[in-house]
């Protein structure tokens, strides 16, 4: 990859060493994002290793995911894979300088990402309602008491490692997807997205019932709103093709992590 801003002959050399050749031949934002993703991959790597450790260590490991859960997770996988394609098309549109299509493709990516979050949230609510909980954690969140009998309640009681590993890993991923959707919104819509995010936050806060596990966590959207507002107002800029490409790197990474979570967590715990 070469970039005009990186060529030596177009920058000054007043201070020796100030404009050294970029080591990786890429602009700094992209190298920064790659380094962040490398470090984040170690975070997810540790979680996936911990999940695998629990799975090997604990005999017998529960296999609670019925056909409906597998179908749901497969649709979620399809959403993320499709969102990666629309993201690539968005990067192409940005590099063509086609603002309208960049925005459309980024919006399509956000829709797929939101579909993933909603499907995952529904799956979580169903599992929790059927008794798959982390002991003590649900009480802290003010979630209504789930079933105390049945397959999932037995798993929570006998193999608490399963809900801990499952919710820990998938919550971390869901948080990343949520941040990704907000990041895309900021890049695509800039300050207009603040209003959209505010409406979604308020609507979600009123619509999600108090007994639901997402009733309090949804206020993370409010925190995201404040952070996005600080970024957009303190450093207002017109996001260019580089910003779209860097945002795309983050989004593809989120997709990449799911390619390991899906088989390891869901497919290896099927109950057909």
């Amino acid at each position, binding site marked *: *990859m070469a970039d005009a801003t990186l060529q030596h002959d177009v920058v000054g050399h007043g201070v020796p060493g100030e404009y050294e050749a970029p080591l990786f031949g890429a602009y700094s934002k992209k190298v920064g994002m790659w380094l962040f993703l490398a470090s984040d991959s170690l975070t997810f790597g540790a979680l996936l290793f911990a999940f695998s450790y629990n799975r090997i*260590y604990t005999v017998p490991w529960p296999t609670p995911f019925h056909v409906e859960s597998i179908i749901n997770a497969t649709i979620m996988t399809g959403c993320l894979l499709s969102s990666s394609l629309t993201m690539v098309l968005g990067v192409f549109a940005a590099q063509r300088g086609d603002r309208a299509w960049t925005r459309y493709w980024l919006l399509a990516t956000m829709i797929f990402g939101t579909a993933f979050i909603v499907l995952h949230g529904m799956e979580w609510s169903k599992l929790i309602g059927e008794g798959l909980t982390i002991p003590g954690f649900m009480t802290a969140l003010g979630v209504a008491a789930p079933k105390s009998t049945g397959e999932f309640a037995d798993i929570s009681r006998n193999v608490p490692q399963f809900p801990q590993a499952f919710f820990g890993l998938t919550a971390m991923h869901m948080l990343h997807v949520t941040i990704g959707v907000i990041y895309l919104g900021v890049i695509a819509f800039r300050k207009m997205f603040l209003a959209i995010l505010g409406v979604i936050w308020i609507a979600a806060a009123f619509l999600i019932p108090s007994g639901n596990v997402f009733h309090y966590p949804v206020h993370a959207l409010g925190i995201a709103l404040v952070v996005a507002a600080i970024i957009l107002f303190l450093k207002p800029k017109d996001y260019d093709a580089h910003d779209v490409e860097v945002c795309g790197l983050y989004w593809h990474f989120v997709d990449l992590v799911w390619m390991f979570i899906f088989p390891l967590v869901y497919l290896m715990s099927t109950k057909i």
Partner: protein
Amino acid sequence: MHDVATHDDSKGQYFWVWGALLVLTAIEVVLAYKQVFAAKRMLEILMILSVIKSALIIGYFMHLKFERALMRWLLVISVTACFIIMYFFFFPDAGRVMPPPNGVGLP
């Protein structure tokens, strides 16, 4: 200015990669649904398929295939080395299989 994604590649290859990822996902689901292999062999096969899928995503969607060789190899080797170290930390201990605390078997 020319950029990372404006080399000779066409958009078509990204649709092929997307299709390949969907097909590999379908193969994974069918293998798990039909329970074709025993658990250990199934894990190995699913992880191999996942590594292929992640290589497609990193190489094409994230364009690492088209980056400078130094960046490509430095990222891949450093992250892979960290995972190998993690493997040796975690798994020798995980082999100490313990029964569930109350001895109650689960399906």
